[in-house]
């Protein structure tokens, strides 16, 4: 089996993969990084979103071989070095932007990509951007509120 090398959350790693192994599986099974989740088999749910070379990617849609040599950011690398939550993560906790937590890694990685592209998105822009991330628990209200708050904007409806 071929071996690929990536920088994952800033650390160089190597992992053996089959030609058909997708990046999400290489992360989870190959590297034991189970923070990235798999919720479907048709690239709809978005639970597996990571950043590859700075861009949000559904990691089930690319082969691990395609990520050879890439910089990969996952949910495990988002908190501050001291372990405290980053601004976006903290906003998700503050605004109850998660319940079961399964979609959360993908939501955080998508939301981080959104805020990089568009630091002050409108509520409609947030809802539009999250088209590729399904949450079954929250009704998206807490998620939208959290992203508004993380971008320094007042939320549409305060949690009660």
């Amino acid at each position, binding site marked *: 089996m071929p071996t690929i090398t990536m920088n994952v959350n800033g650390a160089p790693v190597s992992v053996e993969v089959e030609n058909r192994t997708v990046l999400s599986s290489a992360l989870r099974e190959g590297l034991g990084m189970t923070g990235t989740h798999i919720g479907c*088999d048709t690239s709809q749910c978005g639970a597996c979103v990571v950043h590859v070379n700075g861009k949000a990617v559904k990691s089930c849609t690319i082969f691990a071989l395609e990520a050879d040599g890439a910089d990969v950011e996952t949910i495990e690398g*988002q908190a501050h070095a001291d372990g405290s939550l980053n601004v976006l993560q903290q906003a998700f906790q503050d605004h*109850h932007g998660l319940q*079961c*937590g399964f979609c959360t890694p993908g939501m955080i990685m998508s939301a981080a990509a959104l805020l990089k592209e568009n630091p002050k998105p409108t509520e409609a822009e947030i809802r539009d951007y999250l088209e590729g991330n*399904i949450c079954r*628990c929250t*009704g998206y209200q807490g998620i939208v509120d959290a992203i508004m708050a993380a971008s320094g904007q007042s939320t549409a409806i305060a949690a009660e």
Partner: protein
Amino acid sequence: MAADGGMGHATKRREDVRFLTGRGKYTDDYTPAKTSYCAFARSTVANGKINSIDTTAAAEMPGVVAVFKGEDFAEVGGNPAGWAIVSRDGTPMQEPKRPVLAHGKVRHVGDAYAAVIAETLEQAMDAVEAIDADIDELDAVIDMAGALANDNTLVHDEIGTNMCFDWGWIEDNRAATEEAIKNAPHVTTLKLVNNRLVPNALEPRCSIGEYDPGTGDYRLTTTSQNPHLTRLLISAFVLGIAENKLTVHSPDMGGGFGSKIYHYGEEALVLAAAKKLNRPVKWTSTRTEAFLSDAHGRDHVTKIELACEKDGTFIAFRTETMANVGAYLSNFSTVTPTFLHGTLMAGNYTVPNVYVNVKTVFTNTAPVDAYRGAGRPEATFSLERVIDKAARELGINPVEIRRKNFVKPDQFPYASAAGLEYDSGNYDALMDGLEMRADLAGFEARCTTSAKNGKLRGLGINSYIEACGIAPSNLVGVLGSRIGLYDAATVRVNATGNISVMVGAHSHGQGHETAFPQVVADMLGIDPMSVEIVHGDTSKIPFGMGTYGSRSLAVCGSAVFRATEKIIKKATLIAAHMVEAKPEDVNFTDGEFAVKGTNKKVSFGDVALKAYIPHDFPIEAIEPGLEETAFYDPANFTYPAGAYACEVEVDPDTGKVEICSMVAMDDFGNVVNPLIVTGQVQGGLAQGIGQALLEHGVYDENGQLLSGSLMDYAMPRADDLPNLVVDHSNATACTHNPIGVKGCGEAGAIGSPPTVVNAVIDALQRGGHDVEHIDMPVSPGRVWAAMNG
């Protein structure tokens, strides 16, 4: 309200931190050493006779370590129904065996008939492709009316019918209800479909079986809302493993919504395989398998009649429903369309006559069982749609017709005509609150604005009641339940003063790890962060019944409350001994035991330490240790209720419905954590709006699931939903549990579907279209067709 973090405080969830940092540990995140992987061969036909299954080639594929077929499990038990229903004529329901793997026949697309275990998942999946299954496709029964009319095509040949049972509630009310309808000045009739839904918890099911040949112990790590119940079913009915030799562990779980209440054959298979192979066996469902094999929800076809006076006073509701149970009886498939549906058919109203007839039907489709709301959404949808239609026919405002018939605050406790006793509520106050919060007075002006933009605006109103916290065991036993429905908690005060609380409820999004400690901390006057909840592992927790039916806080939380009361009682004895006072002279407040009329006191922490270092205990009077267990069996259901309003705009050119506003005014009794409650309602609203506008599990006439992927099944996305306004300030405490809580997990999914559909019909009526009903999902195509006749 207590100190910061006590009851009533919007404490942020502590469990969020691990989920936000990728440190949650879900079942598929566990991979024991030497794990082998399981993949299933599933039927591609809806009904088929298995002639032979040749696994020779599959067994020789690279990495394959075993192949199992249905006949390998022919001698073990079946997966039972948890509730026995008796038909109107006194005959018991039909209970065909549900095997671990299909044997002899396959009965729905996705029915598993073989399993391959291999060194890797990919090898197992490859080998499944090499299985040579000779299966004759037979005619299938898909729609319920067809299944009932067709005695030649049977899902289960051995029972000779496709009807599981024909149930009447309350049968003694049948004649009186018929008479009332016959003599009524006005009768409104509505035929409607409650669309089949696919739960789609975002984490697919996953099960890992392990066996220790040294001790004979089995371990099942699995996605379950009720690990003790799963253990009981496997032990007592399916595999016969001694209950004390089986641990079931359900760790972090990515949602359930009902679909993970039930025991599934895959769980039994990985356990049996693990023993046979002497190594761990893991199966992780794909989303495709989830669509085909998870228990679906709803799927009723109903005719409802509302008889009333000309002034809108209700006289009778009569319902005839066909409820789909699919190809096999899932564990709670028989109680969902009956007692969880029929008993709610009086709604929030003082109607004197209610009769419900439910025929449950086997079809060649995936099993149907409780899904968020479970019977109550079906009841509420039927009631609130027919009430809306009656209001229109009688020229009465939809708010007023509901108010006219509400049970009034001074009528509680109220015995409904459908057999329940509502303990508390104030439906007028909820409607008052709704009128304010949703600004119903401003609706006409908003209508005018919409019209200027070329849109048809409509307002939908709904009021609902539901029954949560199932339920008194003595009552459900009489009604056919084969289990008790208490829950249990053990409160262990450790020597150093922090506390472990072992609970029967399972948290998979509900925030128990945050909310339950609020209850304990409030009672003990301590920091909630010193209280830790332990759940999900049968080797650690007492025998409780798990999480479903919005019961966790009302039932298990009450067990936590009772166990904490026992802790206080015993700690008071220890404190009295320490300060050399009589126990009756010792008061416990704010975490301190104080002797009345003196300045003698001792802290809770010192008492805890003394409990475990009892050097000077009067051992005949006080046992060492500070640990108490309580089993709590509720005296009644709880009865959350609400009033909802939705405004929609319909595009007359396309039929597309946009939700402009959704306001939920709910009564959940006392609220322990308003942040979590708000989130629970918002999530429920999204699922209800999904049912109303988007979601539909559709089978074609051959039994192929057309909406069998997330590309075809329309899950609500962020841009499908409006801001969701939630208010639970109009509360009346539950009168029979110690916390006064009612349950909030399902309300949104129960109250919202009729609210949305009522709004769409209102928009069309106001736009001059004589449309009385559109079945859900109210898709653009259906709306456009209704408008264009």
